[in-house]
């Protein structure tokens, strides 16, 4: 039976179920197929904070959202159009965000008495009218999956039930006309060693797809045309992988072996995991005893002539502060990546937030300025990593690269570059005494960077440390004038980087009186919100900061050019403090501190109110 096909420009689907239900997998496979069709997309997983909360409990719900469209999109989307709910808990926690009139597909088999109780439902929401405002698809996914896999020998009905996520994937794939072969191929490869599992999963997936085609209650399905995109090869990538590839690229292009020392912490651990797999690129990874050790190990490796990197999240940043300060004094390259998460203290480890900017700037005792780079989108973490390394190596300084949970976990298409086009980077190790016979480890070049002389280089032996140093010689020195000079030199070196970075680019619009200024992961939401405002004829300009210290030279000019400056942040207003202090403009804040990214829709409202 042939069903109607409707075209849609953009769709947001959310898969939600128990941690054990494999929703992340279903979502990721749906994203893969979607990417291959050529839709633009952004995804956002939402893990439960608990290791594995009791099955069926509210705390145990795991969700995966994907926003895809036939035009470029910027955020994982606010309200889903479709919600797949595998059990009552998943329905309860996710229904509130579903658009009125949206489609909710539930796994009927999951709505058992005990599960309803665990979800704290007094009555069955499928019966009591809770879902009246939505298009409801009640599908007994578990039993249908079990039936579909009957006869595959070696597969118990318990195993079979586990494949229900692929059944769900099948239905949704049909709904949005996703290609079958992509998923099929993946299943075959993934379970190559376990043929029966492969067979079961395949059967489940197909059963779901066929259910879509045949089921009475599904009359239409949809098509989302490919999005226009720059020609080239693409892959889906999240911020973690993008950062990893950026670091490896920096290592290859600089010939500096990559050395990562880290202590596990959510969400930063993923980068440690990713990099630990790249032997081929000579990547050394160490799981240190704590974050202090991790930072010191990275600094030690830098002293040895490696590219020393340490990645962590909020609490770990606190612990690295003293060592970063040492790095400021030693003037050695050191990259510290802060994958920000919701704080303060242990806070909400799996939730996103970007409230570490001022700590990055001021979170060390004494005057210890350092450059700060922030990534804007998942894929842009690649460039951000390259840029952070460039600055660290060129200026012999610790650099803090700010990312966050949202960027780390969210996926978007990445236009894969040609490695040969990536800028080479010369570490410029010192090989000769600076000064006739003598080596002056703190004699600076025109950028105020000092020589990087690594052990093994004859005649350049020197000792560096955390005590104030004499200008040029680097000997310990406690004199008043020298301290003033060195303090200024350290500051000027960092400030001078402004000559070496791109100016702030403004997406201006004639007649615009408001500038929306962003940094970090608010990029997509801001661009999307501005587009929405403009669609309705509103006039607003937009700019995004990739360097937070120093700020681009023209930043003052830019912010002064508008009557109103609005700074959206997922903190209580940090960049806005910097802008106000630097340029004395009455910049205003839009803040959201909920452990969630800002969405275009809400920011649209915020902008419109203020226009």
């Amino acid at each position, binding site marked *: 039976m042939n069903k109607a096909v409707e075209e849609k420009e953009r769709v947001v689907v959310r898969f939600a179920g128990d941690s054990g239900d494999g929703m992340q997998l279903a979502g990721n496979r749906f994203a*893969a197929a979607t*990417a*291959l069709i050529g839709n633009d997309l952004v995804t956002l997983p939402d893990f439960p904070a608990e290791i594995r909360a009791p099955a069926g409990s509210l705390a145990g719900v795991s969700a995966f959202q994907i926003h895809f469209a036939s035009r470029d999109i910027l955020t994982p989307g606010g309200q889903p159009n479709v919600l797949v709910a595998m059990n009552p808990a998943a329905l309860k926690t996710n229904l509130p965000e579903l658009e009125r009139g949206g489609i909710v597909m539930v796994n009927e088999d999951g709505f058992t008495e005990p599960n309803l109780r665990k979800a704290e439902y007094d009555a069955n929401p499928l019966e009591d009218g809770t879902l009246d405002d939505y298009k409801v698809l009640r599908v007994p996914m578990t039993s249908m999956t079990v039936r579909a896999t009957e006869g595959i020998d070696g597969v118990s009905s318990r195993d079979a039930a586990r494949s229900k996520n692929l059944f769900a994937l099948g239905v949704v794939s049909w709904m949005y006309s996703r290609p079958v072969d*992509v998923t099929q191929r993946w299943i075959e490869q993934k379970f190559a060693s376990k043929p029966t599992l492969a067979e079961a999963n395949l059967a489940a997936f197909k059963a779901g797809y066929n259910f879509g085609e045949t089921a009475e209650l599904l009359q239409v399905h949809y098509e989302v045309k490919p999005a226009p*995109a*720059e*020609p*080239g*090869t*693409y*892959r*889906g990538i999240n911020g973690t992988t993008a950062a990893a*590839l950026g670091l*490896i*690229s920096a*290592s*290859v292009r600089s010939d500096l072996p990559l*050395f990562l020392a880290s202590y596990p912490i959510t969400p930063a651990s993923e980068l440690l995991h990713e990099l630990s797999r790249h*032997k*081929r*690129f*000579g*990547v*050394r990874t*160490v799981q240190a*005893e704590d974050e*202090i*050790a*991790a930072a*010191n*190990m*990275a*600094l*030690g*490796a830098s*002293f*040895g*002539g*490696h590219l*020393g990197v340490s990645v962590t999240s909020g609490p770990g940043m606190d612990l690295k502060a003293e*060592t970063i300060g*040492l790095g400021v004094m*030693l003037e050695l390259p050191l990259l510290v990546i802060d994958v920000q998460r919701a704080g303060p203290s242990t806070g909400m480890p799996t939730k996103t937030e970007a409230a570490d900017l001022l700590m990055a700037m001021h979170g060390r005792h004494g005057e210890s300025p350092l450059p700060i780079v922030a990534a804007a989108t998942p894929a842009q973490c690649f460039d951000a990593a390259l840029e952070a390394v460039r600055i660290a190596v060129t200026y012999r300084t610790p650099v803090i690269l700010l990312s966050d949970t949202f960027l780390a976990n969210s996926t978007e298409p990445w236009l*894969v*570059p*040609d*490695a040969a086009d*990536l800028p080479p980077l010369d570490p410029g190790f010192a090989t000769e005494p600076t000064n006739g016979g003598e080596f002056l480890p703190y004699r600076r070049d025109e950028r105020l960077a000092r020589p990087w002389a690594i*052990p*093994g280089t*004859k*005649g*350049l*032996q*020197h*000792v*560096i*440390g*955390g005590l104030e140093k004499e200008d040029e010689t680097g*000997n310990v020195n406690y004199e008043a004038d020298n301290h003033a000079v060195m303090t200024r030199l350290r500051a000027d070196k960092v400030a001078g980087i402004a000559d070496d970075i791109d100016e702030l680019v403004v997406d201006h619009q004639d007649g615009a009186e408001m500038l929306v200024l962003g940094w970090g992961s608010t990029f997509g939401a801001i661009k999307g919100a501005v587009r929405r405002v403009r669609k309705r004829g509103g006039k607003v300009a937009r700019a995004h900061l990739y360097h937070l210290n120093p700020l681009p030279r023209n930043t003052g000019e830019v912010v002064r050019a508008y009557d109103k400056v609005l700074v959206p942040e997922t903190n209580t207003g940090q960049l806005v403090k910097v802008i106000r202090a630097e340029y004395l403009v009455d910049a205003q804040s839009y803040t959201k501190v909920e452990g969630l990214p800002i969405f275009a829709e809400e920011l649209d409202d915020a902008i419109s109110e203020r226009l």
Partner: protein
Amino acid sequence: MSEHGGNGAVEVASGGNGSPALTKKDFASDQETRWCPGCGDYAILATVQQFLPELGVPPERTVFVAGIGCAGRFAYYMNTYGVHGIHGRAPALATGLALSRPDLSIWVVSGDGDSLSIGGNHLIHALRRNVPLKILLFNNQIYGLTKGQYSPTSEEGKVTKSTPFGSQDHPFNPLALALGAEATFVARTVDTDRGHEADVLRAAAEHRGSALIEIYQNCNVFNDGAFDAVRAKGREANQIRLEHGKLIRFGVEDERGVVRDGGGRLSLADVADVGEDALLVHDAHDPNPSLAFALAHLAERPTGPTPIGVFRAVERPLYAEAMTAELEKAYADAGPGTDDLDALFRSGDTWTVE
């Protein structure tokens, strides 16, 4: 990168890499030493500078990583590469250096506060990992640089600036702690005993892996005489010099020795009473650290007969040695290039837009 000093083990007196034999001067920096007159640190500095040429590792491939404290100043007086890090973190910084540069000979210099108070965790982890570091622990049983507070090795009841009524805590036994932390090499020597100190340094240098060397160091300003029982002239009789494979005996005429009693406990005895055969034979190579541990507890404080020398020296794979070799190889032969990067970028699902 040269084979010398590789992984922290060096053949002593290898005569260096072809270069004219090294001398003490090659290892002495031009910086004025700034310890209090009479400080034990001077003696240690002299011995180390005197000894290093033996190793044949040139100054540019020798690195001293120091913590904060009087001891930490040591690095400035060596004409080698050096880092004077932050308080307590030297073993961690040195670990990063050792993993990235296995070709270097790396020495850590640290005080009892630096190593055992704030830095205790990094010390025990470096030891358990068997990172090729030679850790010199200058134990003066006091905080010198901060002008005299008690340390984790000070005796109970010690009256100091921070404990006017006497300290409250039971001290660490540094060697016992190291042995409890799976150290592969553990030794003790005395600042002014140049000969013994050099022997111990030599053994540490020959050892493949991390070595903890406790050096009894007199702080004549804030804790003078702490080690007189084993250090002062004429007290050599209190030095129980451990030598692998030899009977453990001591005294002016070796008239005393160490025996194991019925209960299995170690104790001191007069050789005349127990007879030579009853004496314990020192086995520094025993894979099980229990004997070394018992010897570390033979004297809880250096107030009477006290063992010095190498307590333990056993073989164990170096931390990440295999992995590092592999990485260096991967890197060396076919140093990863842009082609490898392109392949890496394109791993996993990709799609193309014409």
